């Protein structure tokens, strides 16, 4: 079952970068500014640093089982039935988040670009591309990420370059007013979307990696690049829009692109910049969807995961429409239930796995010795 497919370290780096930026690029500056005000960018730096510990946890787990996916690791450590049950909860999370991202992109387009297009049409279009990508396989997704990361870089550099003249440094002063506690608190959701949710990457890392040592490095580097992008965007949002507007807008980085005006000539290019978010959203959705489809196939011991793609794709579109009744609900859900869900799967579960595994190892050693 596609065990012979391998992706290289650079492709994995592109995937990790896209994944850790995915949704955060659109909404995280607002979430950070809500609690930390003008110190939101410091909260982003804090978050990035703490997130490294989470990534380290994943790498630790991965290096013990270099040929297994997360679902298989669960079964190996926790036993067949408990393992399968836990994996089901994990797969369900990935599936819900895939639907959630469809909702994100649909609302984003609905609010800013196409107010009269029904969301179902927008969601079907994105889901269709995701389904095509996943049925072509992991290698295809990885290769396209490798190409699109270049487009992304160019657009992002242009955005930063064009917005520089609009910066007002008074907006970020006084620095460190919020104090360490609110800053740490508001970075919790940042860590969730950039690092903790990256637990779904354990479905491809390390099982489909051709060089574990290099891929580990790309996991860290990719994550740091993603974090840096968010830090820069948060800083720019605060410095250009001010702390209030950054917190009040649903999509502050899009509002940022609206402010671009170089010599009354280069202006109104926000729709072009929206390409950045759509790209990042696409790859993140694909990875969530791949993890849920492939994970479900492994739980059910199917030989091939491909028959599941189209039915689950249809379900994910419908789910994306009924998941949240409105945008405010989604915001609340993310801050409460979504947060607990992610942390229990992305932090608590790996720690439990590591502890149980260590206990079993010492137990086995003792048995052998006796």
């Amino acid at each position, binding site marked *: 079952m596609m065990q012979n497919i391998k992706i290289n370290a650079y492709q994995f780096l592109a995937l990790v970068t896209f994944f850790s930026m995915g949704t955060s690029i659109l909404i995280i500056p607002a979430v950070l500014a809500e609690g930390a005000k003008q110190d939101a960018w410091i909260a982003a730096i804090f978050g990035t640093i703490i997130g490294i510990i989470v990534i380290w946890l994943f790498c630790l787990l991965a290096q013990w089982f270099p040929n297994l996916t997360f679902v298989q690791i669960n079964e190996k450590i926790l036993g067949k039935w408990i393992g399968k049950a836990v994996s089901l909860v994990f797969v369900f999370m990935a599936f819900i988040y895939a639907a959630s991202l469809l909702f994100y992109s649909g609302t984003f387009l609905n*609010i*800013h*670009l*196409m*107010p*009269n*297009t*029904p969301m179902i*049409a927008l969601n079907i279009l994105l889901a269709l591309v995701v389904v095509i990508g996943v049925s072509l396989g992991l290698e295809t997704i990885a290769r396209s990420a490798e190409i699109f990361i270049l487009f992304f870089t160019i657009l992002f550099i242009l955005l930063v370059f064009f917005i520089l003249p609009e910066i007002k440094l*008074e907006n970020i*002063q*006084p620095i460190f*007013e919020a104090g360490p506690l609110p800053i740490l608190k508001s970075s919790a959701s940042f860590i969730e979307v950039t690092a903790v949710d990256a637990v779904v990457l354990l479905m491809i890392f390390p099982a489909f990696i051709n060089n574990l040592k290099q891929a580990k490095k790309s996991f860290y580097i990719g994550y740091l690049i993603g974090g840096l992008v968010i830090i820069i965007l948060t800083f720019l949002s605060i410095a250009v829009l*001010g702390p*209030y*507007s950054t917190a009040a807008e649903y999509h502050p980085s899009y509002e940022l692109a*609206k*402010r671009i*005006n170089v010599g009354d000539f280069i202006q*109104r290019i926000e729709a072009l910049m929206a390409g950045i978010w759509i790209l990042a959203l696409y790859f993140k959705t694909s990875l969530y969807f791949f993890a849920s489809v492939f994970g479900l196939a492994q739980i059910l011991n199917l030989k091939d995961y491909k028959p599941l793609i189209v039915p689950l794709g249809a379900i994910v579109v419908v789910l994306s429409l009924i998941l949240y009744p409105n945008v405010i609900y989604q915001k609340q859900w993310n801050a409460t239930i979504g947060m607990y869900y992610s942390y229990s799967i992305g932090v608590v579960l790996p720690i439990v796995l590591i502890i149980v595994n260590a206990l079993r190892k010492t137990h086995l050693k003792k048995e052998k010795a006796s």
Partner: protein
Amino acid sequence: MKKYIFGLLFFSLFLSGCWDRRELNQLAIAVAFGFDKVDDEYLVSAQVVVPSEMSVNGGTGKSQVTLFTARGETVYEAFRKMTKESPRKIYPGHLQMLVIGEELAEEGIGKSLDVLSRDPEIRPDFYVVIAKESAATDILNVTTTIESVPANKMFKSLKVSEEAWAGTKSINLDELLTDLISEGKEAAVTGIRLIGDPKIGSSKQNVESIKPAATLQYDHLAVFKGDKLVGWLNENETVAYSYISNTVKSTARPISCPNEGVATIEVIKSKAEVKGDVKNGKPEININVQVKGNVGSVQCEINLNDLETIAELEKSFEKKGEENGKRTIESLQKNYNVDIFGFGEAIHRSNPKEWHKLKNNWDEEFSELTTNIKVDLTILRTGTTDRTFLEKVQE
């Protein structure tokens, strides 16, 4: 199979389209909005361009813009109601000006601005002005020369006078909203006045004469407390405000010569630094304005070749500037008790901890605030000549 897929893809080329497609001939492009309040209802006016008159072929000589008005309990309702009169839906993406009537401004502008910050089609980079002594709808009902779209005239006039004269101060919606919500700064918005006969003003006849019967002019600066208009600053005070808020790009200022008569300094660069400080629990503001300028005109008999004369001219300018700045701040402290300069923000930046104690009764603190203002002019050039012919004029 491949043939079918190819065929399907080929035909889908012709089926593609955009759900939210709105062609140019379905849009009424609004360039200026006016908000007024009439009997507890909002009166919204939209100045909309007439595309056929804007065409390169010259049109038929009718007015290039038209004015739609509608009343509603909310501004947004009035926007939509406008379609009763307008054959096309109002498209605000190219909005340049928002004029707010004085009466509405006195009542409070905040409620009417929410829709503008919420609607995705509106870009917050248009200018906001207050109609002084008239309704906004009357301001939008005046034809103008040179720029035949009145909104363009208002936009460019404000931009150019801010850059060349400093007696007006532009503010766009984004900046206005920032000032409205700021704890340490109140908003100040430039005023616009209708001068002349408003009845002729709306007709084509107005611009057919050399001197139009009615014109639009920027004058005075509206001072806000919260979102309510509380008073107007005159021109000299506006100039001081422009210096302190660091928006002076270039201006001309008359100063008195050492002996008698006047000269003009052409300011070409100005940079103001506002620094907050708290001494013994009392806030203090230090303003330092660095100005670079040229001698623009001389209307007195002085010897420009003397370095001392230059120094005296500099001193004269500095003294006048400092006095004007001091007077303006005092008048705001006494008459309105409103901090439009953002002194509170300056203290917030420099002393964040003390600011949290001060901010609750900042209005009172502001009225007793000590301010030190220092102007420093450097004269760089004297134009194309180093003397004045007035010395040689035979009496």
